[in-house]
């Protein structure tokens, strides 16, 4: 095989095709009128905008299909302003397309390198200015400037500290402890086990100690969903079964995938859904993941009742709630 490739001729530019307006004066006149009409439409739209703003009462309403009941002045301002800008653009483009010169022009790329004279002159200027600024003689200025500029670069490095400190055990703790009362969210009422019907749910939070205030961070980690089903429907290990109370089971509401609030409970299928990525948990099997991207079941909160029948936590969560993190021990 030979390396020679057959060269083909540069086809050059196609022949210029004249537009009608280039040679027909009537067509050119028509194009001129069209552009003028577009600009006039823009002017009219602006007048309409100003009119709507000043003279149309804000109480005036008009019914439009799909849009429903609308304020006339808002509508006038919006449509007017949109038309004012759109018709200027449209007129300018129509003008350019029909009347402005459209002959193709070849503009060769100029050389990138500056001329030798320019380059020499530039070097000369730098040298001269450095001399007149006395940079060589005034060493104090040179050194302090160096220090100042050098230190400026340090501050972004200091900001890196905001990446820490490490959260330590914070991610593994919630406010739930043995004996914490379950209270309804947001009413804050204690809940009797007998208050909850089969098929019922209550959104709960841990009861606050006197004087304590509920912060968003606490709500975001402590939120629990209480569900009551018929006890015989449970399919739990003996330990997990002992964490329930007469068919009442409690799960952390924070999804083990990305931390959304899992609270879509289908009481017929006993499935809990996460609204963010459709992870589905089976309540009867200790929130086992049956669909979706979640990797772990929702942590179950062990509950029991006090002497008066109010629901309390038997113990805190035995595993970190919410999504995985680097230092999390379990998988």
């Amino acid at each position: 095989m030979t390396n020679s490739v057959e060269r083909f001729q540069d086809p050059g530019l196609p022949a210029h095709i004249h537009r009608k307006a280039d040679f027909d004066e009537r067509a050119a006149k028509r194009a001129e009128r069209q552009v003028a009409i577009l600009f006039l439409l823009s002017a009219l739209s602006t007048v309409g905008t100003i009119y709507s703003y000043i003279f149309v009462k804000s109480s005036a309403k008009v019914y439009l299909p799909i849009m429903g009941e609308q304020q006339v002045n808002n509508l006038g301002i919006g449509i007017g302003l949109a038309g004012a800008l759109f018709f200027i653009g449209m007129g300018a483009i129509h003008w350019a397309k029909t009347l402005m010169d459209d002959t193709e022009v070849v503009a060769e790329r100029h050389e990138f390198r500056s001329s030798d004279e320019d380059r020499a002159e530039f070097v000369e200027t730098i040298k001269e200015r450095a001399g007149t600024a006395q940079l060589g003689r005034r060493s104090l200025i040179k050194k302090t400037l160096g220090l100042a500029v050098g230190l400026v670069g340090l501050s972004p490095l200091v900001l890196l500290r905001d990446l820490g400190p490490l959260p330590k055990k914070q991610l593994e703790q919630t406010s739930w402890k043995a004996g914490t009362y379950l209270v309804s969210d947001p009413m804050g009422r204690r809940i009797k086990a007998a208050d909850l019907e089969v098929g019922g749910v209550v959104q709960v939070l841990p009861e606050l100690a006197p004087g304590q205030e509920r912060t968003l961070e606490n709500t975001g980690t402590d939120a629990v969903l209480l569900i009551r089903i018929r006890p015989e429907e449970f399919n739990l290990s003996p330990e997990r079964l002992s964490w329930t109370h007469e068919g009442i089971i409690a799960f952390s509401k924070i999804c083990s995938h990305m931390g959304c609030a899992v609270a879509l409970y289908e009481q017929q299928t006993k499935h809990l859904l996460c609204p963010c990525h459709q992870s589905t948990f089976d309540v009867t099997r200790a929130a086992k993941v049956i669909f979706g991207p979640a990797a772990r079941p929702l942590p179950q909160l062990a509950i029991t009742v006090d002497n008066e029948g109010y629901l309390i936590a038997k113990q805190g969560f035995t595993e970190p709630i919410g999504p995985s993190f680097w230092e999390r021990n379990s998988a």
Partner: protein
Amino acid sequence: MRRHRFAGPIIIAAALITVGSAFSMASALPTAQHAETSAANTVVDEGKQIFLRGCSSCHGLNAEGSGIAPSLIGVGGAAVDFQVGTGRMPMADMSQQAMRKRPVYNAEQTAALAAYVASLAPGPAVVDPASINWERDGNVANGGTLFRTNCAMCHNFAAQGGALTNGKYAPTLMGVEPKYIYEAMITGPQSMPKFADTTLTPKDKADIIAWIQAANKEPAQGGASLGRVGPVTEGLLVWTLGLGLLIGVAVWLATKAR
């Protein structure tokens, strides 16, 4: 082409169910004659008659339930009033979810059915709309907080409804009568869990209803509200209509004038 060996039996079963439910629906239609003859009977007996003709094919002759429909013993009159009063029951077909439609039974027949089902076992009673008093007692702000904690995950933050699994969905609450909202909360229809008066007090419920009614009346100040469901419809509009317009303009920009 060979058919599946169960194809025959399945087709026969499907045909039987279709004919059967069509017949039971047709025979349940109110007749003037029926109203006259039952005038002497008690309301419960009348309800039982309607039940046997219109509901028992799925829910069983004694409302004990079957493989395709739940038992109605202990669901109370409120459940019947909600399901039948909103037209959800009887279902039009065996789909995943009974949806709201024109009621099959009139108010009197619905009340009779509710009385019959309530007589089977104690359960939540039909709610008297006058007892809710949401207009007087309802605190809209508190109702909004309660709604966002207890209802918004399924029914959407603006009460517009949302999707569940396998074709099930939480319906929109726009235009739903306060009585039916209340009954839905205490009976937990279909996928919805129960929110009993013991955990969500009547006052809480009045607050929630007041908030839903306020959301119902919310004017769309910004123009078309696009269902108020947020980025889905807005995105759809921008990606189809908006981008379509831009493409149209781009094509016009690039065509040469002749």
